[in-house]
């Protein structure tokens, strides 16, 4: 058993778990149903096909770059323009990046890797208008979800890493936990069926834990010429103990 590491990044993503009617929310991290749906699409499963094999996978998410919440106010009319459809709000995460560890048996991960290289259906991040950007596959790693998410390098964009002027960065991870855990949160995103006629989701409990990892773009401050000059105080020469 090992972990497949994915990087989910796109101009827009949307991961709804509690959306009803005209207000379509997004979570701040990919949902389990969303990721399983992406894998199911890659392997060519149709909506009515059974999901058993995929349901064994365990999934953990690390928020590399939280992104920004965007609201889309959407209007629509019927084809003849006579009837207006209900006004609706759709929420998106703009410019977010997530690391997703998919834990499962090696043969299955191998099939998934192949499928993601040549997906049967187009891949999208939560909503059909949100195709992924950048490198999706980041290899198969030994260890369980928590371990892989604690060891994986920071996958945020270069400019975000540069802007973060510290040697380490603390990121939130979201992973399954036993329902008895005190700080657990309940999310209804355990897919039972994606069948459009009777979609079914079950509850699962997740736990948010922070992990601290090094920032690859951090440069240690050396007393460089510029810095030495910026604070050049000749009078300090007289106070220096040598």
């Amino acid at each position, binding site marked *: 058993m090992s972990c497949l590491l994915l990087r989910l990044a796109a101009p827009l993503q949307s991961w709804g778990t509690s959306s009803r009617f005209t207000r379509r929310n997004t979570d701040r991290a990919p949902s389990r149903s969303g990721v399983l749906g992406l894998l199911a699409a890659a392997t060519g499963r149709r909506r009515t096909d059974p999901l058993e094999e995929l349901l064994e996978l365990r999934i953990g998410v690390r928020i590399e770059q939280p992104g920004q919440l965007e609201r889309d106010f959407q209007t629509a009319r019927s084809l003849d323009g006579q009837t207006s459809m209900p006004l609706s709000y759709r929420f998106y995460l703009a410019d977010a990046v997530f690391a997703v560890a998919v834990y499962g048996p090696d043969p299955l991960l191998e099939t998934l890797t192949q499928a993601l290289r040549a997906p049967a259906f187009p891949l999208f991040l939560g909503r059909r208008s949100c195709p992924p950007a950048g490198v999706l596959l980041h290899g198969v790693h030994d260890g369980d979800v928590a371990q892989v998410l604690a060891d994986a390098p920071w996958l945020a964009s270069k400019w975000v890493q540069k802007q973060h002027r510290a040697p380490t960065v603390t990121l939130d991870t979201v992973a399954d936990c036993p329902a008895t855990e005190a700080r657990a949160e309940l999310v209804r995103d355990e897919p039972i069926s994606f069948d459009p006629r009777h979609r079914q989701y079950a509850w699962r409990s997740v736990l948010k834990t922070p992990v601290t990892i090094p920032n690859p773009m951090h440069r240690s*401050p*050396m*007393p*460089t*010429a*510029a*810095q*030495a*000059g910026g*604070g*050049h*105080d*000749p*009078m*300090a*020469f*007289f106070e*220096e103990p*040598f």
Partner: protein
Amino acid sequence: MYFTRCALNPARRGARALLASPHKLHGAVQAAFPPHAASATGQGRVLWRLDQTEHQVQLYLVSPDRPDLTHLIEQAGWPTTTGWDTREYQPVLTRLAAGQMWGFRLKANPVHSGRKTPDAQRSQRFHHVTVAQQTDWLLTRTDKFGFTIPLGENKEPDVAVRGREVVRFERKSATVSLSTVVFEGRLEVVDPDRLRESLTNGIGPAKGYGCGLLTLAPLRRG
């Protein structure tokens, strides 16, 4: 030897006249010492440098005798609140030792001499023009001055070239033009005696016009 710092008030007319002309400032600095008195130590010379940043103007002075800057403060300083700060230089200079690392700042006038044309009668001084030439000017002389410039993070000598300017000012009826440059960086002491010599006697030409005064400061991390 004495090391002096004196803040000038750029809002005053007297200060502006001095800042506009190294010739006038040279006169003001020389006036800090009585004309007839022989130097007590017989070593070193008067060196000065103006460090101008956005919000403050500092005059640094190295001199064999204790300066009296009252006239400068009256014309161009804050006469009622701020004076000048003079320290004994020799005691700290004696503690310089080989292997020490210091931050440094030096305003210099890098020049080379040669004949303008092959058949010219006399040799004359020419400014070094580019950053590379000016840096090279310093790096080829550091042995003589008693220090080396260690390699920095990018495997290049750890020296930065800051203010490069060509100053023109009137001296009697002639125009003097100087190309000055501010070097900043790290140095490692190799020969303390030679370094003391450079600190008290200055580096390069135009010493009367605010060039050649090397100052050291402790390196701070971060």
